[in-house]
């Protein structure tokens, strides 16, 4: 028997007393018709709209070369993927504060969403959640076959029961808080590049 005077019981009892008479059914969510065109160009265009960029790469060697070309001054590259060794392994990080000096973080997303250009990343993909936020720049590897059309399909893929943290990331950190002027790199990463490369 719950103590009726706890905040929990007070709230639940107040709700029960005040529930509207009308009982509304949970609606079915239909499968909406989708444009028949390929998903990758949509994903690339929307990612660009969000301030990110996508690159087609053929091998881990090309990934390394592209990383160096995009971030020539990078001193600390922290990698959570086998394809790129980096200067620091994400697995070696004990405390997220150790990521404060990271120039470039490298991670692999499970899938992308065509209608927004977002990628889905979980705690397991990031190894340390902070890698995606304290790094100055982020590189996201993505299998071009793993793009879903929209958020309905995206939520059929996510497994919230299996991860403490998951995020749809759509391009880099952004703000429009001063005179509605768009600025990238407000608090999180300054740039986000998606490298299309199937996993090894």
């Amino acid at each position, binding site marked *: 028997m719950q103590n009726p005077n706890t*905040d*929990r019981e*007070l*709230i*639940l009892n*107040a*709700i*029960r*007393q*005040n*529930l*509207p008479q*009308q009982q*509304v059914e*949970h*609606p079915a*969510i239909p499968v*909406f*018709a989708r444009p028949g065109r390929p998903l990758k160009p949509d994903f690339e265009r929307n990612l660009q709209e969000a301030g990110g960029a996508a690159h087609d790469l053929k091998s881990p060697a090309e990934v390394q070369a592209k990383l160096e070309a995009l971030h020539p001054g990078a001193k600390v590259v922290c990698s959570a993927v086998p394809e790129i060794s980096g200067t620091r392994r994400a697995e070696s990080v004990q*405390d*997220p*504060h150790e990521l*404060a000096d990271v120039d470039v973080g490298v991670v692999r997303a499970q899938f992308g969403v065509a*209608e927004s250009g*977002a990628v889905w990343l979980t*705690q397991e993909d990031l190894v*340390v*959640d*902070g890698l*995606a*936020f*304290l790094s100055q720049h982020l590189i996201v590897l993505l299998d071009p076959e793993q793009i879903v059309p*929209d*958020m*309905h399909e995206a*939520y059929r893929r*996510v497994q*919230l*029961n299996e991860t*403490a*943290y*998951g*995020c*749809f990331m*759509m391009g*880099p*950190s*952004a*703000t*429009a*808080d*001063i*005179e*509605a*002027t768009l*600025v990238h*790199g*407000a*608090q*999180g990463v300054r740039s986000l590049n998606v490298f299309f490369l199937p996993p090894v």
Partner: protein
Amino acid sequence: MGSAKQVDPAVAAEQFIIRDKVHEPMHDRFLWAVMQRRDREAAAIPEWEELREIASQIKEHTLTHLDRYLEEFEANATRRGAHVHWAVDAAGHNEAVHSILRDHGVTELIKSKSMLQEECGMTPYLEHRGVKVTESDLGERIQQLDHQPPSHIVFPAIHKTRQDVAQLFARTIGTDPNHDDPHFLTEEMRNNARPRFLAAGAGMTGGNFAIAETGTFVVCTNEGNADIGAAVPPLHIASIGIEKMIPRVEDMGVFLRLLARSAEGAPLTQYSSHFTGPRKGGELHIVLVDNGRSRRLGMLDFWHSLKCIRCGACMNTCPVYRRSGGLAYGATYSGPIGVILDPTFDEFKYSELPFHSSLCGSCSDVCPVKIDISDQILKWRRVMAQKGYLPFAKRVSFAVAGHVFGHPEEYHAVEKIAEPAVAHAPHFLLYNRSLNPWTRDRELPQLARQTFREWYLANRSTHAKPEHRS
């Protein structure tokens, strides 16, 4: 209830408008541009109207079974390792947060934007108890440094120019007052905030949605500031209003397709983050807050306002909000949604807000969860009139109009008489600045020479003579 003085939005709006020729037109222009982006995004989704209807039904379903979904959410979040707290009111919320911080010896807190924490007055409460609180959202930080509440639920500092921000940062964080480029100002704040993220003992967030099925809550931001606060300090506390529940993971697809498109004309916010239990090596506390929401659920005319997902589209589309600025509402929530939410906290203090509207209905048309905002504004006017909260100037004119419009036979009789009366009345009654400042920038429309009824009878009515029909 309501010992506080009534807020007078008309006077405050007037000050915003007459302040200079810069702020009000800029505010109007920026928010209208956001609205146009919203319209383009909405038009590009063929099922947009269907999504709005489904979202509305999901929210109504959840709210009519809210006790069940809260228990389900609590059970699942607890199973995943989160600590779930309940707070009946703002004081209970603030005490719960402070006690968690005290138990962990936390003296520095970094927080992301949360309208609920704003509603609870949490920051001053914690600061009085020695906790240093830093807003990490740029707009919220600007407002915090300027000792002002947010003026918009999505763009907290949208009423300020870049020069205002440059002057403010010069005073508070020591930047060059003449350097007002938004890129420079944003970079300065990034560099100022970074050490605070690293020093903070706890990160606080709100929650846009709470999924009962999995015990997950979802936070949507553009800066990634909520995620840094959750990912770096060892302790994460989230404040979530009880109305934020949704039943299933699948429902999120509907809401995320609507939220950012409605809020800012983008397919998503840059970050849509899902927290299910504490992160590896971290501790997670969730405070579920009522603060008047269960009472509102029992208000037949007003419970639909609990469907709100805080997108701000009603504010951006509102001709009155765009010209008034959000601070004119003198409340946590401004714009059309504020007009219908604020009186549920204090009827007397916010009794003027329902009259700060043109009742054009655009808010109801754009609301992604189909809240009948403009109808509720009208119903709140009735409440205020019944409670006798109308100021004298309005009481006289509304009483006459209410009686006349309520009795059609008198209306027709008065209609022709009203024309000369109105023609003579305005400048000593309606346009008296001290009686009714709201009218200063507004002219009454010219009354037509022929009334609509006369025109209709002559041209369209089946009673009209055939030779008059086109």
